[in-house]
């Protein structure tokens, strides 16, 4: 109860609240403070501003000793986070996925980056770019690459790889080396196995040792023999070159 002097009656009037005198005064639900609010403790404290729920669980704390705001990020499991329906933008962190989740007012959005626990102890050695997630400033480690492409590569360093004009190459011993592909082991008509090769840029498969094509011509002979062919359908007889009878 507050008493205020009434100059017209010359008496003191009893009023219920200072609200009628100062509209910045906020007391109950529905009150609105007009103007800015500054909280400045006389001594820095861990609890300069504390907001609790009805069960006294802390929701928000402003710490002026460490100068941090605690409780801004909702921390819970992913399922519990996604079950929340904030009334406005919000940010959360899921302990089971180690990812951030942003609520844009309608949907939760998941961050692509997965976080990891860090300690204050530095790494040994000169480089301090170790990452428990496998990504450093100049390396990727402990990962599997899937559904990706290998393109060109101008870095001529040992172990570099690239694909140029359909040829897969590895940089080793100071030169780009072609990686030969398109080999197969095929059972021929005689029931034996042949190692065959389909060179890049060629149509047919060739038995590696003989250089004969797997395409058999109308005369029953490989159309290409010893990596050589005559024009037309009839090929020359195979020639045994070298050796002694």
């Amino acid at each position, binding site marked *: 109860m507050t008493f205020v002097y009434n100059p017209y009656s010359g008496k003191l009037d009893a009023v219920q609240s200072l609200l009628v005198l100062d509209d910045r005064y906020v007391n109950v639900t529905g009150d609105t403070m007009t103007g800015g609010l500054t909280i400045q403790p006389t001594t820095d404290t861990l609890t300069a501003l504390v907001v609790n729920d009805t069960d006294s669980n802390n929701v928000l704390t402003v710490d002026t000793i460490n100068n941090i705001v605690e409780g801004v990020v909702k921390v819970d499991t992913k399922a519990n986070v996604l079950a929340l329906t904030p009334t406005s933008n919000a940010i959360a962190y899921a302990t089971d996925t180690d990812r951030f989740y942003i609520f844009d007012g309608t949907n939760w959005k998941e961050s692509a980056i997965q976080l990891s626990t860090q300690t204050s102890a530095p790494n040994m050695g000169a480089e301090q770019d170790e990452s428990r997630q496998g990504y450093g400033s100049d390396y990727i480690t402990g990962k599997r690459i899937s559904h990706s492409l290998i393109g060109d590569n101008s870095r001529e360093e040992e172990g570099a790889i690239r694909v140029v004009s359909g040829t897969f190459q590895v940089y080793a011993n100071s030169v780009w080396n072609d990686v030969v592909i398109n080999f197969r082991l095929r059972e021929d008509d005689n029931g034996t196995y042949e190692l065959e090769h389909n060179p890049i840029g060629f*149509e047919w498969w060739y038995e590696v040792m003989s250089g004969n*094509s797997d395409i*058999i*011509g*109308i005369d029953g002979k490989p*159309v*290409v023999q010893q990596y050589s*062919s*005559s*024009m037309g359908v009839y090929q020359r007889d195979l020639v045994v070159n070298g050796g002694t009878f």
Partner: protein
Amino acid sequence: MSTYYLNADTGDNANAGSSASPWETLAYAYDNSSADDTLYCQTSTSTYDWVTDTIANRTITGQSATGVVFDGADTVVKWSISGTINLNYITFQNETKGAGTFSSPFSGADAHTFTVTGCIFEDIDNGTHINGSGIIYSNADAFGGNQCTTTFNSCIFDDVLSTTGKTGYEQGIFNLINPPAASTLSLYNCVINQTESTGLPDNIFVATSNGNEWSMFFQNNIFYNSTGVTVKLCNSYGGANPKIPVLLDHNTYYTNYSMSDTDYDVTNTNNITTDPKFVDVGSSDFRLQQDSPCIDTGTVI
């Protein structure tokens, strides 16, 4: 994938289709086999009936090209091919389309892969229709828009269009009208022999493009024309936009051949224009004499 056997002499469609108990006709074998199966035709004295049929996703292999003969009995034969078709070591002969018939013995359907190896084609009557003539006919306008791959390896085309007269410049042995994009026609190590001037086609390849980019590859072939009448290698029917890339590489042209017209973007390299020196053209013996310029002058495909 299963293999079933046929024999034109001893086969019976009531048999099991095994090697020892072969079927008789291709039509029965086709109807009683499944996609990707092989139909193996044993060497027979009798000819196999070559009748109109739809052939999809089969490999049809002869025991030998000269011992397995499909005879069209001088009637119209039209195989509508689709899917993946392989024809190996078979002689196809005596197919007659007659005047005005719009057909070829092999008409490619949409998205087919048609590979022919070691086969002989002879006495294929071109008829007199301006389209749909020759050995193969493929028309994207009729069959759709997916890629078609047609390849002939080690095949002989022996006076294939010699039975009746021609009527228009459009006729060729191979006719591809507006094939789907990325389609290819390839001939490797084939002999195209033309010794009879009666009914001689004006062209070997007739092709057009209508907005689709597709290509032709011809390597290690011998084109032999002893008629004295000039035959054009490539011609178009109605223009080509874009131009059709044609690789003519390591072939022999002997003689009386003219090169392509302006509708083709031709790469013409490493070719021979001297006599290939067959053993005996008159008896269709296309083996090479010992001093043939074609021996070991082909390229690796």
